[in-house]
């Protein structure tokens, strides 16, 4: 059914359709309407879940951990500072191979305190063992949650999935989305039936400590299975297309890349702006393409190489910075192209931090500076403020 709803509502409806047994969230640091919507759905009996109103984000993730360990499907949503507070638990959930889904609403980190969008928060937990998917618009974010449970609970994966969506730009924006029926989702996503769970009839010890003789092997298996999960992400995207008739890419989604001279790589909602901008520049005869990175973990190295193999120039946009290093995504794109037959120059533009809009003018600035040969730079800076200090 097509509905005109807010992004947060779209997520809440998708999560409800996935029939979680336990939902746990903390309202601040900061939150979105997602958990408010889910609270109402539980209060009205539309979603039959235990909603555990915890005292911190750390406990929200921990409640979910316990719920999955006991054999229930679990969900939480968080963002920014809350995600940082959860970080310890996130590593633990992945290490224990407990499948679940969290919406990582992308917002900046303090200091300075900011509630606005960038990608610093979810990129800070990129090494946690969670698979990370980034959505371009609210239809994709809705669909991605349904896919995420299917990926996470696959016996070949058994790793948690974080669905990342841009704070405000998506969460607070009303768009028309197609909300599938419960029957459709039930047919696509069977009830959670874990291989192992905490059950007195068949007792397991979960979370034993590992000495040097075994720890590395456990971590190796997580890495092996996370990398192999790429095929599951692709398979689930294809299955989703068959079941629901929608396709927004699997691990990447190239736009006008085939004949492109310059390819812009980015994640999240800025892809929409980039596509419009690329269309406009193409009208002026510039062959620009856009590579949407939909799956950041596992990092789809072969698909990126393939998409960029004919480009003369690559520009990576990133709404985060590894302070003292360079952009996170640009570094990984450069590594992906290392020792390839054709290695185009990779320009890294850091922009859109703390809610700074990335406008067509910002993209023009980036293109001009990339053409001039700048490799690593902040775009859209208000230079008058910097000079004033």
């Amino acid at each position: 059914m097509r509905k005109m709803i807010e992004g947060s509502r779209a997520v809440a409806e998708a999560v409800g359709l996935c029939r979680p047994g336990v939902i746990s969230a903390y309202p601040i640091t900061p939150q979105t309407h997602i958990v408010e919507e889910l609270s109402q759905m539980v209060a009205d009996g539309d979603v039959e879940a235990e909603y555990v109103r915890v005292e911190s984000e750390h406990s929200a993730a921990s409640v979910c951990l316990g719920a999955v360990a006991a054999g229930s499907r679990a969900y939480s949503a968080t963002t920014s500072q809350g995600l940082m507070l959860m970080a310890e638990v996130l590593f633990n959930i992945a290490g224990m191979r407990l499948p679940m889904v969290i919406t990582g609403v992308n917002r900046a980190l303090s200091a300075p305190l900011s509630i606005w969008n960038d990608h610093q928060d979810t990129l800070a937990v990129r090494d946690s063992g969670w698979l990370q998917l980034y959505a371009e618009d609210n239809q994709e974010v809705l669909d991605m949650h349904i896919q995420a449970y299917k990926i996470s609970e696959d016996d070949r994966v058994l790793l948690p999935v974080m669905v990342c969506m841009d704070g405000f730009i998506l969460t607070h924006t009303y768009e028309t989305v197609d909300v599938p029926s419960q029957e459709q989702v039930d047919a696509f996503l069977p009830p959670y039936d874990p291989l192992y769970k905490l059950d007195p009839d068949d007792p397991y010890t979960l979370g034993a400590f590992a000495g040097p003789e075994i720890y590395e092997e456990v971590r190796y298996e997580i890495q092996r299975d996370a990398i192999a999960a790429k095929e599951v992400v692709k398979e689930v995207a294809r299955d989703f297309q068959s079941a629901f008739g929608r396709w927004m890419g699997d691990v990447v989604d190239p736009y006008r890349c085939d004949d492109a001279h310059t390819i812009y790589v980015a994640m999240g909602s800025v892809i929409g702006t980039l596509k419009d901008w690329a269309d406009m520049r193409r009208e002026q005869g510039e062959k620009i393409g856009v590579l949407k990175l939909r799956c950041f973990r596992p990092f789809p190295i072969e698909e990126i190489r393939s998409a960029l193999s004919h480009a003369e120039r690559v520009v990576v946009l990133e709404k985060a910075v590894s302070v003292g290093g360079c952009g996170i995504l640009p570094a990984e794109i450069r590594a992906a192209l290392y020792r390839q037959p054709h290695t185009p120059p990779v320009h890294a533009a850091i922009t859109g931090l703390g809610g700074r809009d990335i406008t067509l003018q910002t993209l023009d600035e980036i293109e001009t500076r990339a053409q001039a040969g700048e490799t690593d730079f902040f775009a859209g800076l208000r230079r008058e403020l910097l000079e004033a200090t």
Partner: protein
Amino acid sequence: MTAADFKYETSRGFLPGHRACAGCGQAAAVRIVMEVAGPNVVAANATGCLEVFSTPYPESAWGVPWVHSLFENAPAVASGLEAALKRQGKLDDVRVLAFGGDGATLDIGFGALSGMFERNHDVAYFCMDNEAYMNTGVQRSGSTPFGASTTTSPPGRRSFGEDRPKKDLPAIAAAHGIPYVATASISIFADLRRKVKKALETRGAKYLQVHVPCPPGWGYDEKLSIEIGKLAVDCGLYPLVEWENGEVVRVRKIKPIPVEDYLKPQRRFRHLFRGEDGKAQIAKIQELADANIKKYGLVE
């Protein structure tokens, strides 16, 4: 009795062969808890001695489903277990237990514990109180008693060891108005068993804080664990009290002995038995015991 005669069938939940130190009060207390609890339980365990000595991969001393996640989140993990079992309709038969040491419980997991109490999850939380961070080398916790020497509250030219009394977590737990709170001691088995049984028969959040002497951490001969624990109760420093719905309902009466009798056998209080200044500190400890005796009416 020899080791071969030892009957452990009564505690299939917590089996021998784990790696606790000789004389470990905590291991003995957990055995009693699991004997009373039986097999129909699911347990969450905070990081700490108990977790480490009972589950070095690929070994496990647990005959019941058991999960360890992190240091500070056992109450939240147990809340999640309870919520899931409730949703699955299993909570009538299965009891949820949680275990944590005093550091996990009073310090780093305090917020999570308060949350679990306030939401009144049907979980029995057992704090194994050995009064310092023993697993990591005897560092001071919020439960370390006044005057005790630990590796981070050492006596020195300007110090007599820990300078603050224990955090009164049982009273804080009771202030949440949860159905049942009790203190117990490994040294008084029947009382401990009764309180575990009471906790498991009560629905809602329960807090049981068990005093468990630690031979290496406290510094005494390992065969004395039970005796040392009993001295703590008898001198009034570890009052055995039960609260229901926030009110004190029962206390275990004592015939008080001087606190010196409890302090003297332990290395952690040895520095108090040197000189006049030490005597003044012991007098302060006696005042703490006397205050407990008065507050809870421990003497007939």
